[in-house]
């Protein structure tokens, strides 16, 4: 979770920029260069955005329920939207259009199965950016994980593309946790095997997501571009480089860095996250309550490396 949150917080000041307007690669810090006019100038550095808050809602829900429970998660998203639950300072400063529409529907009593928009154009990265806790805390097998990733996506992003992207990401994260030698490739193979019984999903995977294609991306808010951008960023050798690569693509920088950061955190552990970034990260009281941050150890042990257990953080 720390990998995701730090990535998100690093990306916030650079959001919506053309890559050419960004500082030099080595200056893509959580604290941008002084002359750089950062996005959300009123938001303190080290603050996670909607991505981190929604992921924490899912984390808290799964911890409390011991499973993915759509209605409980929906109630927490509404609480975030209305009252800043899991947002730093209880302040919500950004929300995606689809998520906003879906939360509005949920508040009117629409069942969780039907709250998400399902058009092909409704494929923002809003469900992908928050789904990591499923992979961290899910106690089921791969089939169960895949279908709960679908259910998690449908809550706000009901098109099959968003669902499959979330399933692929969750399996990828699980393979990273398992220290698989080829996590991405293994995730694809498993997903194909599962989708043999699910032709629409298999069609989507093979014709649109095309997971074997070369990793690249533009860092936009389109779910497929986000996933491939994160994959490209994750070609970096360490946590810091992965986050900087994600931000260097410009556009939806916080979300690309959040998605890549989740994977990078699993791969390199909390000790792989630069101490200066952990220092700047805000909201630690909330993270302590959730058991993600521990003061006593100074170096947080909230994100352990390569050690799946029921207390993944």
């Amino acid at each position: 979770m720390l990998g995701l949150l730090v990535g998100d917080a690093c990306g916030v000041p650079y959001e919506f920029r053309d890559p050419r307007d960004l500082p030099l690669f080595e200056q893509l810090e959580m604290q941008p260069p002084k002359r750089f006019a950062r996005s959300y100038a009123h938001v303190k550095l080290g603050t996670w955005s909607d991505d981190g808050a929604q992921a924490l809602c899912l984390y808290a829900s799964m911890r409390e329920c011991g499973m993915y429970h759509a209605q409980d998660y929906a109630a927490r998203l509404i609480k975030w939207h209305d009252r800043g639950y899991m947002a730093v300072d209880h302040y919500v400063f950004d929300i995606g259009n689809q998520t906003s529409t879906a939360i509005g529907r949920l508040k009117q009593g629409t069942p969780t199965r039907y709250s998400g928009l399902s058009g092909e154009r409704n494929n923002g990265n809003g469900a992908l950016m928050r789904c990591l806790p499923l992979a961290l805390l899910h106690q089921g097998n791969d089939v169960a994980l895949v279908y709960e990733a679908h259910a998690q996506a449908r809550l706000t992003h009901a098109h099959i593309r968003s669902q499959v992207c979330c399933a692929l990401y969750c399996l990828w994260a699980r393979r990273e946790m398992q220290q698989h030698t080829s996590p991405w490739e293994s995730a694809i193979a498993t997903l194909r095997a599962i989708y043999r019984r699910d032709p629409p999903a298999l069609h989507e995977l093979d014709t649109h997501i095309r997971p074997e294609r070369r990793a690249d991306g533009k860092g936009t808010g389109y779910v497929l571009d986000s996933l491939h951008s994160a994959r490209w960023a994750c070609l970096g050798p360490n946590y810091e480089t992965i986050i900087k690569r994600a931000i260097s693509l410009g556009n939806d920088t916080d979300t690309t860095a959040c998605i890549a950061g989740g994977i990078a955190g699993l791969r390199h552990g909390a000790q792989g996250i630069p101490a200066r970034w952990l220092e700047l990260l805000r909201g630690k009281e909330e993270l302590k309550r959730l058991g993600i941050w521990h003061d006593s150890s100074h170096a947080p042990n909230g994100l352990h490396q390569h050690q799946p257990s029921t207390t993944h953080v």
Partner: protein
Amino acid sequence: MKLVKAVIKPFKLEEVKEALADIGIEGMTVTEVKGFGRQKGHTEIYRGSEYTVDFLPKVMVEIVVDDADAEKTTDAIVKAAKTGKIGDGKVFVIPVESATRIRTDETGPEAL
């Protein structure tokens, strides 16, 4: 009246609906459920895992029918939902004492 309650594979739902329409049954309720059974979910090689919740996605179909129709409803579902492989599911028949259609206040078999 009887409640016919079937748990089937999700991809068989369309065929079951068609089979029921063929015998004149159009109203039903469908719930997404998790099925746990002797057939485990797709097994993965994974060491040292505590992963134990191995469900398979299923759908539960519920239909209330007149006493006389319970058997043919069951038969139609069984025929349409069968793949012959493990995990095809089950059909149960449960007694129903009363039924009311909310829109019209009709009760009994007229409400079905």
